[in-house]
């Protein structure tokens, strides 16, 4: 009798076919787990020594979580070692546009204020997607979105949003 997985046996862990990408996800999870374990061990404990009993130690849950991550990653990598290539699904230009939009909010909001940044970026995102002829739709979208946001966050919830150089 053979003990252990047969060739190509999946241990029943996945319903979907594994891909080559899963191998890299699994290996990355293992690497992240090892790096985190190294970071977590020297967590400074402001008591005289390691706490007793051991279960109270502040590094126990981070260690256990990193171990779960590593073990699951290893299992995934093992399962996907003979996987096929995953189909390409990402439109990279669109991805770059969206990430740039999100990043621009983080950078521009303290400088231009929430309302100013909202108008500029809403118009920019609509134009980038629909073309320069869509400026009436872009302006209308920005007006509605910023108006609604102002009503909900400023008028109703009283949130002091960053006001920018124009104090709006």
């Amino acid at each position, binding site marked *: 009798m053979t003990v252990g997985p047969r060739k190509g046996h*999946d241990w*029943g*862990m*996945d*319903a*979907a076919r594994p891909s080559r990408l*899963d191998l890299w*996800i699994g290996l990355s999870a293992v690497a992240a787990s090892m790096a*985190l374990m190294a*970071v*977590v061990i020297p*967590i*400074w*404990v402001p008591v005289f020594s390691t*706490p*007793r*009993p*051991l*279960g*109270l130690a*502040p*590094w*126990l*849950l*981070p260690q*256990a979580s990193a171990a*779960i*991550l590593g*073990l*699951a*990653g290893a*299992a*995934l990598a093992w*399962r996907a070692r003979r996987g096929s290539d995953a189909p390409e699904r990402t*439109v990279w230009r*669109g*991805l770059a546009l*969206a*990430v740039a*939009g*999100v990043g621009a*909010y*983080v950078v521009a*909001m303290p400088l231009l204020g*929430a309302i100013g940044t*909202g108008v500029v*970026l*809403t118009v920019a*995102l*609509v134009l980038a997607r*629909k073309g320069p002829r869509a400026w009436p*739709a872009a302006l209308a*979208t920005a007006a509605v*979105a910023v108006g609604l946001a102002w009503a*909900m*966050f400023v008028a*109703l*919830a009283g949130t002091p*949003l*960053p006001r920018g150089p124009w104090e709006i």
Partner: protein
Amino acid sequence: MWEDIAAGFALFATWQTVGLFGLGIAVGIVIGAIPGLSVTLAVSLALPLTFAMDPALAIIFLAGIYKGGTFGGSITAILIRTPGTPAAACTLLDGYPLARRGEAAKALDTALYSSAVADFCSNLALIFLAGIIVLFARQFGPAEYFWLVCFALTTVAAVSGDSLAKGFIAVGIGLLLSTVGRDLFFGSDRLMFGQRELAGGVALIPLLIGLFAVAEVISHYASKPRPRERFEGTGEGLTWSEFRRLLPTIFRGSAIGVGVGAIPGTGGGIASFLSYGEAKRVSKSPETFGRGNIEGVAAAEAGNNGVAGATLIPLLALGVPGDVVTAIMLGAFMIHDIAPGPGLFERHGNIVYAIFFGLALSPIWLLALGKLASRGFTRISRIDPDLLMPAVLLFCVLGSYSVNNSMFDVGLMAVAGVAGFAMLRLDIPPAPLVIAFVLGPLVEDNFRRSVRIGRGRAEYFFEDPMSWVFIALTALSIFAIVRQRRRQARLLRGR
């Protein structure tokens, strides 16, 4: 108890509460009916708005969005073959062929009535079962709670997505994120990497908005546009005799939904497919399923709406969220410094009963709003997402900022958004991450209390029979899920 009921009724019976609940359901239906926007996104974005609300009002509002969104997801599934929510994917199987045959009105009516009946059953189950479970839960010590949370984490890792390993990767990341910040027991800084803003831990709302809303926005821009399906004519609605014939299917689906929803870590998607499968199994004409059988629509909708109320049972009675939306509701409780669980019924009984009164109204609101406007919502589903997504992004940014009036939280949201998008593309489910994140402190707290009470003896964790029940349930659920996955994998290989 009667005092709590009276106080709960007083809390609920104001025009603001009733109106806000209706508004929540309407918002949920609208968001659910827009392809690309999910209920989770709507509830995440609404969470910052509940800061200023009374806790009962906040939960009722979020529950309204949840229930409205669960039904709203079926509208686009039926009309344009695009499920507005993952739970509505099953409704599409028979709903869309009905719409293609010119019977969209019948399919929409079936979805609406099945949703309302299942919602009613689910709320009844919540009201009666939550109290009974609380009586049991009062006997739980920290060791039993520790095992209960382990059971919830295992289930959510196993049932979310297609891969058990990826589910556990998400749980590992969620638990790690929950440990970031200052450990209040020893005062040690954990995984803060020198960022003082992380001393209080990773903020829940920016994390949720990033993972569920910003990730959807990025995913929209990074995907090829899909051609929209068009439908012709709506036809006649559902007749009374047809509805009566559907009642056994609806009640069966509701019961399945309640059973699935009451288990921590599961969700509407599983319930709708189980209910659909059962309806097909007992049907005299199973070959018509998938070709436009209204029984299929009724079963799927009853299954996923049966979950909506029942999933609040583990949240309110045990403090353990049943799915992502209830994990967000747990966040709403935490914002107001209220811990769900047995203590909620003792210390804030009025809030519990106010929530019950609110939920009891939900089928009526659902029927009224759904019937009044289900034709109008077809127009909503045609809104151009290229105009919608920049507005959603603006709300994400302001919602994250409003938590602590901090740009650090906006940065956190941006990082979580990019990570959420990567998880979407790598098929790593975000639900286990969020549930592990909110349950992490509960795991650690109960583990430490058990260690202290048991004076470091490992046997303390296994002394109570209830601990063994949860350990057995955990093992059983893993066994059942692995078995089911093997069957699915075999089917895939056979194709």
